């Protein structure tokens, strides 16, 4: 635990907080979006907002893989498990993600579908080995960090000639989503707040490096700091962003130099590029169709591609009109501004995706942050 403790030291945190306080200009507002749910979680869990000056505001971005998964993909998975020969392997936090009619994999499982909660891709391989007559489908989801393990799983399946194993691929790319947020005129249309800078996800950059964010910083004139998920990492990243804003700089800086390089992990990137290719576009909850933002299996690996293998087609479904997830995922609104928040929509009865995963913005507010409700309602 020694290792993590160093990144949670109260005295150091207060030192950074003082530095932020000393460096912010009272003349302006600083609005930073933490792209990733891991940061949202750290901010809420450690109560970091209490340490920041009033004019430094954090905006929660779309960065939780479960939150950005559109209802249509859940619908598709549910259609898949309607087939009696299919065993679907999913990570636990996906089980309650709502489909278009409020249905979920958890409910499908209760109704008899063969759905298994797993902890790693190795569990899916084991299942496929144990039940060679079953169609074992792995529900792959996540950003650049989780794509390499899926690639490795396909390699192993190929080597072991596991004929019954395939992947329902929902891997997505962070820089494309950030691009879409910055470019999307809807942010302005819906009265969304302008963003002065981003905290970028460190886990993603351990794979892809910091380089893919450089064109974004340049094109939109926004500073980006790649940061770790410990509370001190986040505090330090905020200080780095404040400094860039004050100095009118917009660079990609690396707070997480203990694991992230500019180039990233060459081997992991190679592995991924051999097996996956870009989809022309992929639907994100809250962002709509984002070009070049999703991955699919290359045709050479079609036998491992559940979409090809079972001829499941893209569905297009509408989200619940009262749910403000779309605005929240773009940073245009805050959870307490949704009428359903905490009344109809709670973690037990999630309506939108932001409430589904523990890292979603609505769930984080509900779980850790409600104590600030009144204060938020007043300032929003």
């Amino acid at each position, binding site marked *: *635990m020694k290792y*993590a403790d160093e990144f*949670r030291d*109260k005295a150091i*945190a*207060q030192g950074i*907080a003082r530095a932020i306080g000393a460096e912010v200009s009272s003349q302006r507002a600083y609005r930073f979006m933490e792209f990733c*749910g*891991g940061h949202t979680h750290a901010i*809420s*869990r*450690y*109560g*970091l*907002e*209490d*340490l920041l000056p009033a004019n430094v505001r954090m905006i929660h971005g779309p960065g939780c*893989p*479960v939150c950005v998964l559109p209802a249509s993909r859940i619908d598709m998975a549910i259609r898949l498990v309607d087939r009696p020969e299919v065993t679907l392997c999913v*990570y*636990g*936090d*996906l*089980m*309650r993600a709502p489909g278009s009619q409020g249905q979920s994999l958890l409910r499908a499982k209760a109704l008899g579908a063969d759905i298994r*909660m*797993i*902890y790693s891709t190795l*569990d899916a391989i084991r299942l496929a080995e144990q039940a060679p007559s079953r169609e074992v489908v792995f529900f792959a*989801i*996540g*950003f650049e*960090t*989780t794509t390499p393990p899926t690639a490795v799983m396909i390699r192993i399946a190929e080597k072991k000639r596991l004929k019954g194993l395939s992947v329902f691929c929902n891997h997505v790319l962070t820089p494309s989503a950030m691009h879409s947020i910055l470019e999307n005129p809807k942010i302005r249309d819906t009265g969304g707040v302008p963003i002065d800078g981003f905290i970028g996800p460190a*886990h993603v950059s351990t794979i892809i490096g910091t380089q893919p964010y450089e064109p974004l910083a340049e094109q939109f004139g926004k500073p980006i700091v790649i940061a770790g998920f410990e*509370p001190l990492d986040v505090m330090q990243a905020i200080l780095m962003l404040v400094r860039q804003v004050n100095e009118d700089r917009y660079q990609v800086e690396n707070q997480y130099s203990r694991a992230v390089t500019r180039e990233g992990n060459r081997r992991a990137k190679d592995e991924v590029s051999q097996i996956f290719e870009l989809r022309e576009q992929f639907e994100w909850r809250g962002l709509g169709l984002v070009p070049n933002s999703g991955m699919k299996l290359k045709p050479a690996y079609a036998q491992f591609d559940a979409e090809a293998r079972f001829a499941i087609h893209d569905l297009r479904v509408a989200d619940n009109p009262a749910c403000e997830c779309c605005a929240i995922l773009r940073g245009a609104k805050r959870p307490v501004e949704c009428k359903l928040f905490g009344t109809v929509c*709670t*973690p*037990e009865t999630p309506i939108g995706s932001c409430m589904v995963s*523990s*890292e979603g913005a609505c769930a984080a507010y*509900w*779980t*850790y*942050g*409600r*104590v600030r409700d009144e204060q938020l309602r007043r300032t929003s």
Partner: protein
Amino acid sequence: MSVKGYQRKLDLENGRVDLSHGSGGRAMAQLISGLFHQAFGNEWLARCNDQSAFDVAAGRMVMTTDGYVVSPLFFPGGNIGSLAVHGTINDVAMSGARPLYLSASFIIEEGFPFSDLKAIADSMGAAARSAGVYIIAGDTKVVERGKADGLFISTTGIGIVADGLDLSADKAMVGDRVLVSGSLGDHGVAVMSKRQNVAFQTEVVSDSAALHKLVAVMVAAGGSGIRVMRDPTRGGLAATLNEIAHQSELGFRLQEASIPVKPAVAATCELLGLDPIHVANEGKLVAIVAPDFADAVLAAMKAHPLGSDAADIGEAVADNRKFVQMATSFGGRRIVDWLWGEQLPRIC
């Protein structure tokens, strides 16, 4: 229900439970006398009636019942049997009562090895004996393969609470202190470390233990200054305090830095994306104590082996929203909510 006449001996090493052991016939009688009575042995069971009569002392009676379905059945620091004894003793003890008797009901899956059943029954017997509590009634059912996950146990407990003591979760008052008897999350982490799909190496063992003797010294030190006691089992400290907050219609304010958590538990939780205050305990209690009595009760806890790491972690506050809040060790504050759904490792 003693067994007369010729009967093949139970093969306790290699034998397995089959449907005949639940049929009410001779095989069942043999299982009960050859395995359960051996393990639990006491004068009430020895009379082999369908019920046991016992004397009642002065005071009020306390009764509780609980089902145990833990997976895996054996874990570092105990098994489903010792757990079923400790858990029910603790539920009785949290009223301030002295637990006296237990009943145990077994639902066994066909094919279950006798050797495991014996190990489990033996540890129940040992746990009950060392607690000074007797298992005086029971039931055995065998179900077909696939209809139970090995073994389920239900235990019911009875105890006597002294006159004048009336602990209840609706009695917390603003200003009361929140005491915990030791480090949190040990049981949950020990069990998780043996789950097939998350197995990992750890030296953490379950804290499963009977707490009534600790409760007795607390009651001696604090008397009616103790308003509420609860054992934070499933859902951990967070669920327990939320329940008390709702029943007493107030809030709690905790200091994260005061909450005892073993480094190995903290590290495991970190790794799995869990929070120790949501993880289950089987040998810990939470006490809400009037401020004037808190120091004396805490000192009594610390003097007892099961409370040596006891700590004062916060206070009850007026809050019509019934929030459990925590000042984080980082200097911010947050809500401590009930856990929703199952606590599961995060995916990224």
